[in-house]
């Protein structure tokens, strides 16, 4: 196969060098800035050492950047063509994890490739965005508005969500459903249908409650009243709030956080890294990180808006929604706004699987920008609409 065919489209479309020049280096810079905050905090969490976290995270970031560029420069049509294969692979791995999965943290979430432990849910999220974008790319607005045409995309979202929920990873299951909902919304599904679904969900809540695992129920209950169980499940939330609150406006200074060092925080290098960050850098640091996230979000949304193909628009948007959900859920969790669900903070939390898949996802967002003018037919060909 000619490599040029993968990276370039028709002869009249821009070549590899032109593409490289049109990569949104600003967006890459923003991502690198946030990642640096992550490295610094992992260094701090290890008590001022590159071991065991920061060093490995930097290495993975380097490898992830390369993958990101590859994902950005491959022609968008390839991604269009790969949508169902990626989705199918994700689904297959989810089933495999169910069967052979290694038990990690009490849940079957990992596949061990020997050199790399891999979470199929990460692939699944990308696969879902790809297939939904492809699906709606091929539909006209009138078709989208017909209720029976929505059965397939809903099914595409619900099946993996159920598989993930079974692991049990409730947070990722909710994320998959949120992604499906967001893409349906952006594709133009009528608002009253969302209202109907919300009403239905509310009606089904009691049933869902009874199906939750005990530890999940506990998380919700303690969230509603953390003081109820200050040494048990509510412990983390209270300790996290104390750490955050004691940071004040300017924080205690880099590596000066006392709460984190005293081991009051569990998994301080992953899920609770924001607590540590905001303890050491205070409100100022928190606002800076929020601003960086907001900038990335705006940047990504703008890319979606300038894309000419519906596939590109929805692809970029879906990825931005996933990114936003991660960031919001994690920060809302550690500040005590929502229950502890155990999602990482994008680009900051320690974790290779999440970091690499995030970078690849953003590679796709950049790809949409690089190929913003590319024409993609309904079936993925080069033809017009």
């Amino acid at each position: 196969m000619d490599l040029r065919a993968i990276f370039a489209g028709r002869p009249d479309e821009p070549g590899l060098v032109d593409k490289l020049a049109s990569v949104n280096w600003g967006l890459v810079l923003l991502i690198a800035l946030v990642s640096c905050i992550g490295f610094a905090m992992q260094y701090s969490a290890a008590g001022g050492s590159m071991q065991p976290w920061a060093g490995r995270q930097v290495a993975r970031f380097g490898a992830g950047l390369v993958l990101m560029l590859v994902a950005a420069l491959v022609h968008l049509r390839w991604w269009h063509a790969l949508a169902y294969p990626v989705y199918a692979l994700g689904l297959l791995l989810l089933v495999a994890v169910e069967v052979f999965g290694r038990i990690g943290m009490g849940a079957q979430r990992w596949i061990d490739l020997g050199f790399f432990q891999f979470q199929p849910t990460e692939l699944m999220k990308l696969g879902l965005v790809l297939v939904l974008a492809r699906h709606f790319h091929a539909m006209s607005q009138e078709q989208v508005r017909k209720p029976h045409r929505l059965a397939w995309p809903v099914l595409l979202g619900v099946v993996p969500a159920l598989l993930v929920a079974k692991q049990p990873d409730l947070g990722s299951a909710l994320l998959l459903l949120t992604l499906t909902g967001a893409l349906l919304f952006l594709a133009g599904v009528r608002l009253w249908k969302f209202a109907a679904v919300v009403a239905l969900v509310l009606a089904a809540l009691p049933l869902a409650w009874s199906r939750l695992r005990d530890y999940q129920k506990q998380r919700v209950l303690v969230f509603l009243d953390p003081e109820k169980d200050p040494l048990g499940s509510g412990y983390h939330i209270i300790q996290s709030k104390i750490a955050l609150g004691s940071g004040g406006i300017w924080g205690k200074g880099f590596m000066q956080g006392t709460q984190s060092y005293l081991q009051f925080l569990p998994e301080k290098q992953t899920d609770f890294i924001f607590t540590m960050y905001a303890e050491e850098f205070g409100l100022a640091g928190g606002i800076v990180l929020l601003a960086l996230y907001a900038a990335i979000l705006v940047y990504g949304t703008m890319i979606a808006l300038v894309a000419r193909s519906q596939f590109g628009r929805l692809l970029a948007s879906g990825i931005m929604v996933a990114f936003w959900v991660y960031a919001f859920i994690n920060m809302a969790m550690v500040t005590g706004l929502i229950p502890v669900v155990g999602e990482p903070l994008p680009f900051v939390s320690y974790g290779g699987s999440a970091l690499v898949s995030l970078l690849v996802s953003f590679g796709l967002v950049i790809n949409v920008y690089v190929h913003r003018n590319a024409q993609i037919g309904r079936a993925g060909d080069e033809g017009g609409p």
Partner: protein
Amino acid sequence: MGRQQGRARTFTRRSLLLLGGQLGLFGVLAGRLYWLQVVESEKYQTLSDTNRISLRLVPPVRGRVLDREGEPLAVNRPNYRIVVVPELTGNVGATLDALATLLPVGEADRRRIMRDVARKRRFLPIVVRENLSWEDVGRVAVNTQDLPGVQFDVGFAREYPRGMDFAHVVGYVAPPAEADLTGDPLLELPDFRIGRNGIERVYDLAMRGRGGTSQLEVNAVGRPIRELDRVDGDPGQDVALTIDAGLQRFCMQRLSQEESAAAVVMEVETGEVLASSSWPSFDPNDFATGIPAGLWRELLADTRGPLTNKVVSGQYAPGSTYKMVVALAGLEAGVIAPDHRIHCPGHMDLGDNRFHCWRRGGHGAVDMVEAIQQSCDVYFYELSRRVGIDRISAMSRRFGLGQSLGIDVPGERAGLMPTRAWKEAIHGKPWAQGDTLVAGIGQGFVLATPLQLAVMTARMANGGRAVEPHFARQRIEGGSLVDRVEEPAPSLGIPQRHLAVVLKAMSSVVNDPRGTAFRARIDEPELAMGGKTGTSQVRRITAQERATGMRRPHEVPWNERDHALFVGFAPVREPRYACAVIVEHGGGGSAVAAPIARDILLEAQRRDSAGRSVRRARAVGTAPT
């Protein structure tokens, strides 16, 4: 194209709507941060500085091991330690120098301390020296104002006050190995020990107890300010042994006159083991504090096996001490009457083989009592030929030989009672009648442990009831110790008149001038004992040796000399105690083992009349905290 544009317009509208919502929620987050870090900051600052909660594990106090009178055999000694807190010290090196003027601080200690200082958090104490005497503690305590950051700490260390006497029975504790870790955080505490051998191992779980937790309020650097809440664990349960520490010590001292020996005393009615000694021994205190490698290698290399509990792990050919079992098998099979006489010319021929009696001139015509009394081998060659190995083997099992007794100290061996099937399976050769003859005098394939021989004797002396030996007065039920309920042992179904013949013969072994152990008799009639000598060959006597005359014992290398055995019971009239003694490579049973058994049985009876409780039910408490 219009539809396309409509789709794009919808997308743009909704996309911006979504972005607005997302940014809005980020705004909410910013507001939340403002609330926590500015508005409520002061409150959290206070909480952060003064009100931190730290949970600590409180290890349980390990249960003690007591003898039957409540004398402690394994206890928890306070372990006084001097620790240094780097954060409070400033210059750790200078502090150690100052400390070294008061008590020795070795170069290795210093290196370890400096390494820990570099590695651990500065508010955590680091042990400088442990197992300090009270004088050392006092000397440092007087000078604490000059020693910033030097503090005292009290932990618990296992101690065995009786040392060597109980090394094999009580066993010892050791830090958990990697394989012992179960995820229970208790096991990972630096001071925690688990039972590694003996009673400490068998009753380990019940003796461990359950850990508690202490909820501490700690200050900004993690130093405890006060205890907020405490969940007490359960201290481990005490184990009360059936062993009499005084008798145990007596046995040990008596055995220490030999190179390598074992003795066990048990009550014939209850199966309670009163003494169980294996010589040479070792000091379990060395194990509790971590045994030096050199000492460990020395113990392992010692051919006399100081680490082995010979009472339960040593397997020996029982020799003539086995003849009563053959006699009982013969009586039950009806192949001989007690007064039937067999002529002993000093040997017996079977096919081409000649089987010798230990007395070259022979015993003449002897009946059963005389055969046991004088330990005539030819009588038992003939008797076992008539009975056959199967019936001998079956009778042996009824007396506890050739099988595990299921006792509560580790390392028990089963011994061996050969059968036809066994020989074919192991040796691939059919059973020969010569094998039966050799087995009939307790040689050849037959193996027994000293404990099994004591049980055999007890079951004869108590009128044929199957007592089970045990070392502790409790047993484990559902993870905790409950008092053992003594129930009458079931009968073995052996006619009393058969037993009477055997017991009469055993009495005459010691108390008849013709008996093999007459020189070891007890003169006081009230305390008189009965028994049976045994000499177990370690190597075959060659025809040439027999022809040229036996070598004198001192000419034979120590490890080729015969084992000396004796089994006995006392008092003869109303047996209370059974005893088995083996002296490895000691020579003859009558000259070496019998006097030891006499001394031990005499001591047991004297201690009895001196007020030792016999089968006294007593409530057993738990260790004081």
